[in-house]
């Protein structure tokens, strides 16, 4: 019953989405207020119906209903409850339903937080989101029905892939999808602006918070994926330039360009058509990512089970949505107008440079990811494009962008004379240079790349400090506290996010520069010294887990003779699938991680597990700064969105109904 209810809810949701997608849009075109007014209720009804469907699927997983094919294929009665629930999105069908749920959720949110939007704009925005929902619902219902029944029902499920039986699975997909799908709001605003012919600073102000929130969620989602890979895959890596990782990174790069571009459009009324294009491209990349993961055109650890029919459907969907929006752009952007002017050196020009660098970086990642496909399609052979390529190309592109991050906040709008910039920033440059020269020696080894990374992060910290100090000094408030409080959340959000990137850069630089890896064979009781620590292997023991059998090793970590931590890496065999998994043990530290995983027993016979084992030991300095930096960036985004002016507009509307005016912010 429940699965059928869910299925029915999806069908109803499709019908409502059709209404949501067509009627308000038509209403905006012919100026029919009653049609436009349907936008909000339609969006909410659709969202609720999808939520109902999702709830039904989750219920089927929670109650071990193996008559549902999806549950039988991806779950197991021995699986703990939280993983049974996470398994709801562990398959292609379930994750698509999650996508659709998120889309409904964002539509619902737009319907709630939009009191100050003109009805025509709101109608168009919600309609565009509705049309995207129609596409996903059609996809679900026609090719990827999560409620398909298994007749006769299985006695037991095939189990969730052991790699996914992890807290990461509970959080990473939902947060990631919040980001992907959140860009549909920016996209819808862009399309609405093109359709309505009105594109100005006010449009940017409405669009900006939605985009920033989506970007923040995407940042967290990607960081979670990276952290999860680090501790779960057993060899200490945290980014592989895998096609699916790239598929999430490209919208992120574009989204970062977009939030900066929106800032310029909001503050200065310029970069308008560029901003609209970025919004379209960001969401398009989300959709292209969906295609790449589910169509089988690229191999990836993340790829879902593929089926040619699905690939074709998504491609057609892509063609319609992306092709349609870019065609609309080609047609209407020319009317958008150019906006104001600015000097060669100004905040606008540094932001433009930042945008261009980010977009070039995104295009390079796209090129590298798809190049094997290009060559294969042209029958020119099969090649592989992996980390050596991406590393070689990405870092040189991002280094200038990181440098500009220090300049941008200091540069004035419209005109930022170079001598003035130099005066204000030369101290920060000095700090960066000295740190870059000295710190590597302190840490053990100097190399140009390490120095560059340290320079960039120290520069960012110093330049951020310069910006804040200048603000405080330049303010007319008496106390330090008052001076600090006078700055907006938006400003602090920016500072925090930029600092976050600085922290991220330190993490990457120091890990790549100073990490140590040792593969050793250790007898029971034998120790090995690695980078100032001593690792002593104390043998293994076997035992059962909730749904697996494990061989657990014990490794004592000592520094200067004192016991720091006892690590227990495992090798598991999951009962239902027989699949093996290596679980690393990590001693997490502020200054770095000690990471240990079991290899294979060295002996040749049955009881060889009681003997010597191969053990992999990694020292990863400052690696957690990578994810801490991402978290700071996301927090910066959320902080920026909490700015008063986004809430002010609501009360303004109540008192001065004719003026959704923008209060001039002090040189923000």
């Amino acid at each position, binding site marked *: 019953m429940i699965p059928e209810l869910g299925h029915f809810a999806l069908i109803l949701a499709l019908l409502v989405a059709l209404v949501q997608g067509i009627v308000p849009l038509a209403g905006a075109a012919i100026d029919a207020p009653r049609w436009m007014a349907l936008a909000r209720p339609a969006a909410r009804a659709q969202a609720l119906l999808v939520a109902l469907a999702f709830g039904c699927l989750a219920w089927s997983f929670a109650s071990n209903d193996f008559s549902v094919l999806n549950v039988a294929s991806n779950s197991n009665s021995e699986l703990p409850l939280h993983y049974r629930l996470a398994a709801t999105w562990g398959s292609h069908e379930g994750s698509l339903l999650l996508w659709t749920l998120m889309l409904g959720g964002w539509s619902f949110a737009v319907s709630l937080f939009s009191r100050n939007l003109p009805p025509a704009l709101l109608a168009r925005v919600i309609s565009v989101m509705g049309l995207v929902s129609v596409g996903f619902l059609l996809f679900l219902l026609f090719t990827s029905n999560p409620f398909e029944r298994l007749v006769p029902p299985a006695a037991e499920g095939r189990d969730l892939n052991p790699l996914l039986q992890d807290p990461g699975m509970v959080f990473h997909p939902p947060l990631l999808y919040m980001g992907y799908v959140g860009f549909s709001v920016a996209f819808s605003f862009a399309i609405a602006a093109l359709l309505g012919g009105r594109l100005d600073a006010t449009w940017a102000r409405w669009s900006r918070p939605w985009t920033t929130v989506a970007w923040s969620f995407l940042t967290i989602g990607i960081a979670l994926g990276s952290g999860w890979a680090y501790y779960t895959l057993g060899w200490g890596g945290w980014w592989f330039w895998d096609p699916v990782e790239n598929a999430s990174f490209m919208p992120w790069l574009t989204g970062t360009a977009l939030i900066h571009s929106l800032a310029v459009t909001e503050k200065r009324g310029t970069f308008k058509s560029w901003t609209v294009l970025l919004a379209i491209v960001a969401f398009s990349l989300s959709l292209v990512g969906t295609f790449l993961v589910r169509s*089988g055109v690229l191999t990836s650890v993340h790829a879902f089970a593929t089926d*040619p029919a699905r690939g074709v459907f998504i*491609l057609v969907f*892509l063609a319609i949505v992306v092709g349609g929006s*870019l065609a609309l752009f080609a047609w209407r952007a020319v009317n958008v107008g150019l906006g104001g002017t600015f000097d060669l050196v100004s905040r606008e020009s540094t932001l433009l440079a930042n945008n261009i660098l980010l977009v070039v970086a995104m295009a390079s990642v796209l090129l590298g990811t798809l190049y094997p496909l290009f060559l294969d*399609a042209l029958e020119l*052979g099969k090649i592989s494009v992996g980390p050596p390529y991406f590393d070689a190309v990405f870092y040189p592109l991002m280094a200038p962008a990181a440098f500009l991050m220090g300049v941008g906040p200091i540069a004035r709008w419209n005109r930022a004379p170079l001598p003035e910039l130099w005066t204000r920033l030369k101290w920060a440059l000095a700090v960066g240079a000295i740190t870059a020269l000295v710190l590597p020696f302190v840490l053990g080894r100097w190399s140009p790349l390490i120095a560059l990374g340290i320079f960039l992060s120290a520069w960012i910290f110093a330049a951020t400090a310069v910006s804040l100090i200048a603000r405080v000094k330049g303010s007319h408030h008496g106390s330090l506290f008052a001076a600090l409080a006078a700055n907006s959340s938006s400003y602090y959000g920016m500072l925090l996010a930029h600092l976050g990137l600085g922290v991220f850069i330190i993490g990457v630089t120091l890990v790549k520069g100073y990490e140590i890896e040792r593969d050793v064979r250790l007898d029971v009781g034998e120790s090995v010294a690695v980078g100032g620590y001593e690792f002593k292997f104390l043998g293994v023991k076997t035992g059962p887990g909730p749904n697996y059998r494990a061989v657990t090793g014990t490794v004592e970590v000592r520094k200067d003779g004192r016991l720091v931590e006892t690590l227990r890496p495992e090798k598991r065999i999951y009962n239902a699938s027989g699949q093996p998994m290596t679980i690393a043990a990590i001693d997490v530290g502020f200054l770095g991680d000690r990471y240990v995983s079991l290899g294979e027993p060295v002996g040749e016979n049955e009881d060889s597990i009681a003997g010597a084992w191969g053990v992999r030991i990694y020292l990863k300095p400052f690696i957690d700064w990578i994810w801490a930096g991402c978290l700071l960036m996301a927090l910066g985004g959320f902080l920026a969105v909490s700015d008063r002016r986004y809430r002010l507009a609501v009360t303004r509307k109540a008192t001065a109904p004719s003026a959704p005016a923008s209060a001039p912010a002090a040189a923000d």
Partner: protein
Amino acid sequence: MKAVRWSIPLAIFLILLAFLWVGLGRDPREVPSPLIGKPAPAFSLSQLHEPSQALSNSDLRGKVWLLNVWASWCVSCREEHPLLMQLAAGKTVPIYGLDYKDDPGSGKAWLAQNGDPYTASIVDRDGRVGIDYGVYGVPETFVVDKEGVIRYKQIGPLSVEALQRKILPLVRELQK
């Protein structure tokens, strides 16, 4: 003139779309062999049924032959085995088996159980000959001509289609 600039993103997307469309029909996991058109790598291995006797590629000069990579632990090999038996029965082309990373006892037992289509099988215990031939999965099948040059590689189990459309016509051509 102005309008052209705005259409560039659309143009780029359409090109991308075309490639993605073609990509749907390709298999990204398939690794084509660089050995097509090159001499078959030399080998000299002991035979499965006559361990004291060796077979080397030079023994096979002057005739067209197939090298079929198989193993007793290989599940997909069972899929293609009936086709191999049929092919062998038709005596069109001699098939030599490369028992890849297998224990000879298990190999012999497997052939006894499922039938032996091979003129002879050789044992590649450590997989070195497999590496020389660019073997990365089992089963694989090579078509070698009279001069000892590899002319075709089938990745994965043989199918009726592959045999009828590609392999048998090629063999007939080469045997002329």
